């Protein structure tokens, strides 16, 4: 067996360079899809040559050079094809010589521009996720397909259609204009959040490797943070990821069944990750531009800092949810707010808030409204209504471990009723 560390370091280097190289090549040649193919070929060339020849002095420049040469070949054959078809000969004149392509290593911004492109609002969320993981994350199509449990050919097609959308929408390779930059950054952060959520939501057991998506989302969030260190919402998102992911080991049983927050073994929580998340958040909050990610991170931090569930500072969590509710129209925030209110003011208050949400069409068929109501009814001592709501929630969830958990709650209460 080979030692894992040099291989991993090598892989990390390539994955870190991949978006920078792709950005540089797109900037030169303006075409996403062939540029991506060219960069893939350059990465493969590096993976086969570098172990023998050693890592070149300027690895980024080496990769850009090789990818540009491939790109030049591509444009030459494309223009030849077009010449044959249209008898237009001038195309070839546009071709820059590979030797003219320098390898400025300071063009870190290309990674950010690439991210803006992959998270363009013209793309559906699942296309943006796939494209970001491929072009910025440097994952192979097979790895992405595996993470989302779809055939590789399906993922390849999804990525190729996403590139086609970028091409046909004429999305330029440049930073968004100043007036739309905040809005576009919000889309980028949302895509990273969705990637994290896909991984976080994975159960243990056979699907353990979906956890890699959380790691990948955190890696990408770190890159964005390094490129835009002054933005407190980016720091907030990274903190939220760290503070949430810190509980991973305690979140499920070894069989993959759900362990709710108040029953988790807190000694399994990752202290180092919590400390990093809290530090990030503490530095971001005084900046004054409080946004939803910072607030969610703050809520996660309050949970993480309680030594026991009973020590949780619920009044503070309630105050944070009140702020968050004012900023976001997300019904899930309203549900969590109701839970916090119940913890502070008693279950009756929580149930009253839930009644106000009952007409929200976004929640009508969602299991979580029933699940929260069941929980609060149980706390209020209305056992039979709680059983009914746990069962209703179980019938609506799209998650197998969650269904098992909700049915077990109903069964636990039903057994109590018999004794």
């Amino acid at each position, binding site marked *: 067996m080979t030692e894992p560390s040099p291989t991993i370091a090598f892989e990390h280097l390539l994955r870190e360079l991949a978006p920078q190289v792709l950005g540089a090549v797109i900037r030169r040649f303006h075409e996403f899809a062939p540029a991506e193919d060219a960069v893939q070929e350059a990465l493969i060339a590096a993976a086969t040559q570098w172990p023998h020849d050693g890592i070149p002095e300027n690895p980024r420049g080496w990769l850009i050079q090789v990818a540009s040469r491939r790109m030049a070949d591509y444009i030459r054959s494309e223009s030849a094809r077009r010449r044959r078809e249209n008898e237009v000969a001038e195309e070839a004149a546009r071709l820059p010589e590979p030797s003219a392509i320098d390898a400025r290593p300071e063009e870190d911004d290309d990674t950010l521009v690439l991210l803006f492109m992959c998270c363009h609002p013209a793309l559906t969320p*699942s296309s943006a996720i796939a494209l970001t993981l491929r072009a910025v994350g440097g994952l192979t199509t097979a790895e992405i397909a595996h993470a989302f449990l779809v055939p590789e050919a399906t993922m390849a097609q999804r990525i190729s259609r996403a590139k086609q959308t970028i091409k046909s929408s004429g999305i330029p390779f440049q930073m968004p204009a100043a007036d739309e930059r905040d809005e576009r950054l919000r889309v980028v952060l949302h895509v990273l959040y969705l990637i994290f959520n896909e991984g976080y939501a*994975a159960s243990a057991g056979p699907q353990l490797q*979906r956890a890699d998506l959380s790691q990948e989302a955190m890696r990408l969030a770190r890159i964005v943070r390094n490129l835009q260190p002054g933005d407190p919402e980016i720091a907030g998102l990274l903190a939220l990821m760290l503070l949430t992911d810190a509980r991973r080991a305690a979140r499920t049983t070894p069989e993959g069944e759900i362990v709710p927050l108040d029953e988790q073994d807190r000694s399994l929580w990752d202290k180092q990750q919590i400390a990093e998340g809290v530090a990030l958040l503490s530095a971001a909050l005084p900046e004054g531009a409080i946004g939803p990610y910072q607030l969610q991170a703050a809520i996660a931090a309050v949970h993480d800092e309680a030594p026991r569930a009973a020590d949780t500072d619920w009044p503070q969590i309630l105050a944070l949810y009140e702020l968050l509710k004012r900023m976001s129209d997300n019904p899930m925030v309203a549900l969590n707010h109701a839970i916090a209110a119940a913890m502070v003011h008693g279950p009756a208050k929580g149930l009253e808030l839930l009644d106000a949400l009952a007409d929200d069409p976004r929640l009508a068929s969602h299991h979580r409204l029933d699940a929260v109501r069941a929980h609060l009814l149980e706390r209020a001592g209305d056992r039979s209504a709680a059983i009914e709501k746990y069962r209703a929630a179980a019938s609506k969830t799209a998650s197998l471990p969650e269904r098992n958990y909700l049915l077990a709650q109903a069964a636990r209460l039903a057994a109590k009723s018999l004794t």
Partner: protein
Amino acid sequence: MKYILMMTANKSEWESFAKWSKEDLAANVAFMRNFTKQLKEEGVFVATEGLGWPQQAKIVRAGANGLPATDGVFPESKEFLAGYWIIDVESPDQAYKIAARVSAAPGLGGKPGSMPIEVRPVLSGFSDMGL
């Protein structure tokens, strides 16, 4: 999110399908093949299978000593799964639209069959963060 699209038919529908004209059969088969191809091109395809005829179906239960006890006599009204597709889409609405497309597969006389397609979510191994 993943959905299964299930195409079912009762015994008499299966039997009438067996009596379709060559042209009708060919049109239906070509439609189904093309439908699956389109799902692949759209980047939503996960899996598809067609199943054997009801005559081959048996209900198996554990009998005495754990030996299989089979039963193959079914009432006329029983619906049999003919085949299924599993797709990965952005929303339930997108799944319903795709189901409607296959429901319009050409039937007798080449007219859209309007077959019932049962659409159900495939449970995932996870739950979301609830945020």
